[in-house]
């Protein structure tokens, strides 16, 4: 079959809708050639390779051969530099620039590899836009919190997908993590029996104290820490899960519902790397009063 994207793929509600439509249009194809036509796509945001990869993995698992056609040079160059094309074809380029954060697929038990990836792509990469050490640490912590959250909550069997991009002149990093798990809305329904709309479920998960955990290990903090940091950092966080969309930017919250369901959860974070705050806690914690 041939699937033709209708427009640019950017990190916004419409961009995600386009990717969700692609998933549903190709969902049932088995042992075929799926030709993805990019002729209407002038721009495809690099970090969203994580989302496209998370969709393609299922197509591949159904024995389909994937072929991209009519990619413009700009997109082809991005897909080559962040290794995305090497997952779909045999091409692999040495990364000439330092502005890509490579596309990777991880399994749930790959936490050590993920640490190595973040270390290589973010913490110890030379020639990056200047950032304070504290900011680098906060950004990495946020990324780790999301990954561990996906591992513990999503029940993914198809993996976890990541990709990012530095924008030196715009002074920002966009980073996306996608899991092919059951999604937040379904997890809440399954674990605590509450039925919610997708966007409400995401908003619920972002509130402190709310968790679907019932076992011996407490939860309900990871996403809240990221939410607090992103607000201080003046960045942005978008979450797509099942049919829900939620975007937090500054004090603004934007929620919406898709007409079709995304098969898992994606978290897309925009970090402001011009941030020079020291992130020191206002109240020092006395070691004797922690417990």
């Amino acid at each position, binding site marked *: 079959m041939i699937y033709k994207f209708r427009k640019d793929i950017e990190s916004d509600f419409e961009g995600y809708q386009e990717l969700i439509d692609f998933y549903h249009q190709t969902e049932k194809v088995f042992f075929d050639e799926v030709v993805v036509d990019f002729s209407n796509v002038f721009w495809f945001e690099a970090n969203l390779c994580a989302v496209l990869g998370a969709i393609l993995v299922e197509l591949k698992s159904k024995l389909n051969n994937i072929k991209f056609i009519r990619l413009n040079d700009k997109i082809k160059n991005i897909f080559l530099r962040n290794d995305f094309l090497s997952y779909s074809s045999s091409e692999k380029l040495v990364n000439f620039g330092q502005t890509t954060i490579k596309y990777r697929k991880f399994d749930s038990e790959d*936490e050590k590899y993920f640490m190595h990836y973040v270390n290589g792509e973010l913490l110890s990469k030379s020639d990056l836009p200047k950032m304070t050490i504290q900011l680098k*640490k906060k950004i*990495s912590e946020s990324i780790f919190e999301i990954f561990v959250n996906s591992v513990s909550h999503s029940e993914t069997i198809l993996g976890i997908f990541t990709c990012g991009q530095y924008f030196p002149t715009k002074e920002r990093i966009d980073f996306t993590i996608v899991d092919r798990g059951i999604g937040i809305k379904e997890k809440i329904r399954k674990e605590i029996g509450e039925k919610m709309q997708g966007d409400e479920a995401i908003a619920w998960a972002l509130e402190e*104290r709310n968790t679907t955990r019932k076992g011996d*290990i407490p*939860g309900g*903090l990871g996403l809240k820490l990221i939410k607090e940091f992103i607000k201080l950092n003046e960045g942005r966080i978008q979450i797509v899960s099942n049919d829900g969309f939620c975007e937090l930017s500054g004090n603004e919250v934007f929620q919406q519902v898709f007409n079709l369901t995304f098969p898992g959860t994606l978290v897309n974070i925009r970090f402001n790397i011009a941030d020079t705050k020291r992130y020191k806690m206002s109240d020092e914690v006395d*070691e*004797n009063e922690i*417990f």
Partner: protein
Amino acid sequence: MKFFRGDKMQKEKLKINTFGEIGSTMCISTEDGEKIFSIIKKAFDKNITVEISFLNIEMITSAFLNAAIGQLYGKYEEKFIQQHLSVKDMADEDKFLLKRVVVRAKDYFANKKNMEKVIAEGLNENA
């Protein structure tokens, strides 16, 4: 006096070197948190006091701390933990994170107990 995984013991005090136990400067995963938890549990079950050192640790997530320390509140009384657990060589921001994890854990287990009580009462009424 029992010997615990090569850690130095001084008068019923077990010192845990986090870096040595997990083999990394990054305390990220629940799995690594569980490793630390199981050592603390072994000591607590013998009434041994524990000091956890975070020397050489550069990064800690809430997921790690929830598994390593947060889940202690489901097994031991708060007072027992206060008397038997201490941390050392921890960066200020990580102490702040640990404090939040502890507050959250107390809240989580208090809610869990209440919920279990409500369910048990409901079952008794229906019996």
